[in-house]
């Protein structure tokens, strides 16, 4: 039962990362895709690359779990850790940018929405997975 939940979680989150990653990478090439405004895509190729990498880790985990081969669960757990890690990087960048703008006194030219990107909001879903499975992995990892 737990593995089924994990499989569904990994497959859904993996798909979300891969789709946003592809849109992020292809955006500058094919132009803005209608209806993607709410995704806060930045057009940064490397952000797209990171999204695809995290998506691939989830996808391999989900595939292995569905076929009952390899360590599917651990791929999803590591995917969760990566998701949360890059979410924290994005959050820290957002806070630092906000502080910088405050110090420069140019607050009117920046809003929080300017610094929101897929790595940040997808990490919120990742954090749910972290609460369910990731903490156990992290604890085992650091006590081993």
């Amino acid at each position, binding site marked *: 039962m737990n593995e089924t939940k994990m499989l569904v979680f990994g497959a859904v989150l993996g798909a979300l990362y891969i789709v946003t990653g592809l849109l992020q990478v292809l955006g500058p090439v094919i132009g803005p895709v209608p209806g993607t405004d709410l995704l806060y895509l930045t057009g*940064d190729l490397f952000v797209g*690359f990171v999204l695809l990498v995290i998506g*691939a880790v989830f996808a391999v985990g989900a595939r292995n779990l569905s076929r009952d081969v390899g360590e599917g669960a651990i791929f999803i757990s590591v995917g969760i850790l990566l998701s949360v890690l890059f979410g924290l990087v994005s959050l820290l960048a957002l806070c630092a940018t906000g502080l910088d703008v405050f110090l420069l006194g140019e607050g009117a030219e920046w809003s929080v929405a300017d610094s929101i990107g897929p790595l940040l909001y997808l990490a919120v879903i990742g954090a749910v997975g972290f609460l369910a499975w990731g903490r156990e992995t992290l604890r085992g990892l650091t006590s081993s």
Partner: protein
Amino acid sequence: MTREIRIALTGNPNVGKTTLFNALTGSRQHVGNWPGVTVEKKTGRVRRNGYEIEVVDLPGTYSLTAYSADEIIARDFLLDEKPDVVVQVVDATNLERNLYLTTQLSELQVPVVIALNMADMAEAQGDAIDLARLSAFLEIPIVRTVGTRGDGIGDLLDAAIREVKTSPHHEHTIGYGDDVEATIAMLADALSADTDLTGRYPFRWLAVKLLEGDESVLDKVRGGPALARVERILSSIDSDEYEAMMADKRYEAISAILPQVRKANVRSMSPSDMVDRVVTDRYLGIPIFLALMWGTFQLTFTAAAPFMTMIEAAVGWLVEFVAGSIEPAWLASFLGDGIIGGVGAVIVFLPNIFILFLILAFLEDSGYLARAAFIMDRPLYALGLPGKAFIPMLVGFGCNVPAIMATRSIEGEKDRLLTILVNPFMSCSARLPVYILLAGTFFPEQAGSVVFFLYVLGIAVAIASAKLFRSTILPGEVSPFVMEMPPYRIPTAITSLRHMWSRGSMYIRKAGSIILIGVLAVWALASFPLGVDYGSAGSFAGMIGHLLEPLVAPLGFDWKVAVALIFGFIAKEIVVGSLGVLYGTGEETLSSALLADPGLSAAAALALMVFVLLYTPCVAAIGVIRQETGSWKWAGFSVAYGLVVAWILAFVVGHLAGFFIGGA
């Protein structure tokens, strides 16, 4: 009365030797996870029971056969300096491999004490080791230690003192079988004719090394009366076969002992192993590594921004204050444009440097960088670089000088030379201020990604150059890479901060010394001859810049950039300091001044970053290349090759960028 004794601390890499050294002597050192990180000899002192003890930390080695510079340093110290006792630090979680070195130390006939380190980790994974029984088998005193907590330090020193007082010392050697033993006996007999060797080296040990094909031992015999007979004996055997047979016998002896002294708990797979399945995955390993590097540079750029703003504001205020309150004008210019403007332009990047080092320290201390070296081994090997080269390449992200020195752990002269020659392409922290200034100014939205691109480009050029050198000037086979994975650890804040400070403070010292001198030289060139406008075409700087401008004009650079690049030869940070001086930034920041310069487009800025990444190593790096290769020829080659590659790639990148974003 105080008696002096000397302890040599030896052991495999990554067994906690440096941590134990710190616990013994109380000294402060960086504790790394990479094999071969301890290259230089380190010493410390401790007093115990009326003894003044000198502890010498030797480089980590897997054996005492002279394959690498580390092994030669360790072995020569044991043989020539003859310490009173050798303490071998053994990783309790990996006895098989560690005891291989013990068998070789026993053959050296030196008094040995074993510090069974990381005993807590072995116990945590369910291993139970019978110390008394193991000690009886090896005939070597063994003390349980946990270096990170300082457990067993007093007992270890007591055991070492006891061993020094024990006389005579027992000999404990491996039996290599009748055929090999007969050859060893013949060689030992032949060597006994050489009176120069008598008393300096154990004959049996020399014979064993000769059978293993150890060239440095053969050198000791050359010129002596035993050489002819030794060569006759060696010509009658296959040394590769003998070496393999003797290694087998040593492992056989270890395998015979271990089941009798250790109850190992066999677990299916530890969480550390499971995570390694993902991060060292054949297909996902490198992308995950690149993603983490991107995150590192993203954070380096963004998290430092508010601190940079604060320092920038303070520097700007100081320049204005000096300009408005100091007379005469030349003194105000000297202090404001020269010292404060120049050095200030460099120290504004301190937060970036410290954050980068903090993240790298975290990755290193957590154990991840060892995995990165592992996953890069395959592509490096395929491209003609030994896997061990990745470690100096990673060190190069901090500074190329220690990185080039770290190549001493690489076996094979050609492999080592190759690694030295490509190391300057690894983007050191001195280049970071240039990227941050230009990327932040011309590509504010993608600054982190631009910096990441430059680091990746540096790695790509290093690898491509290695492939080129391997197929042209340095042909040959690549040495195999043996490495281990330390377990993951949560780095302590104090360790990571200390690590960050020890590397970052170097940057502060540079700002106060060589960078200060460099920017003052630029100020003087921009101010003289007397009577010219500061930084004008009529100044010495202007004359030099205009002389060199035709060389860099195809890249989109003007004379100011040419002057800055010339001074960047001393230290790369001076490029930014020089621009700060030449643009004479007062009320405006250097970023604003650069943006306002119609002669510097975004494409040219990208080309400039590429040029700074790849062109000649700094003076200190050139000096260390000369020292490590023993030749000015290779140092000169490194400078010339770097300049050519930098010019070509800056031209290509600048024009491509001009095509896509305009303003070539």
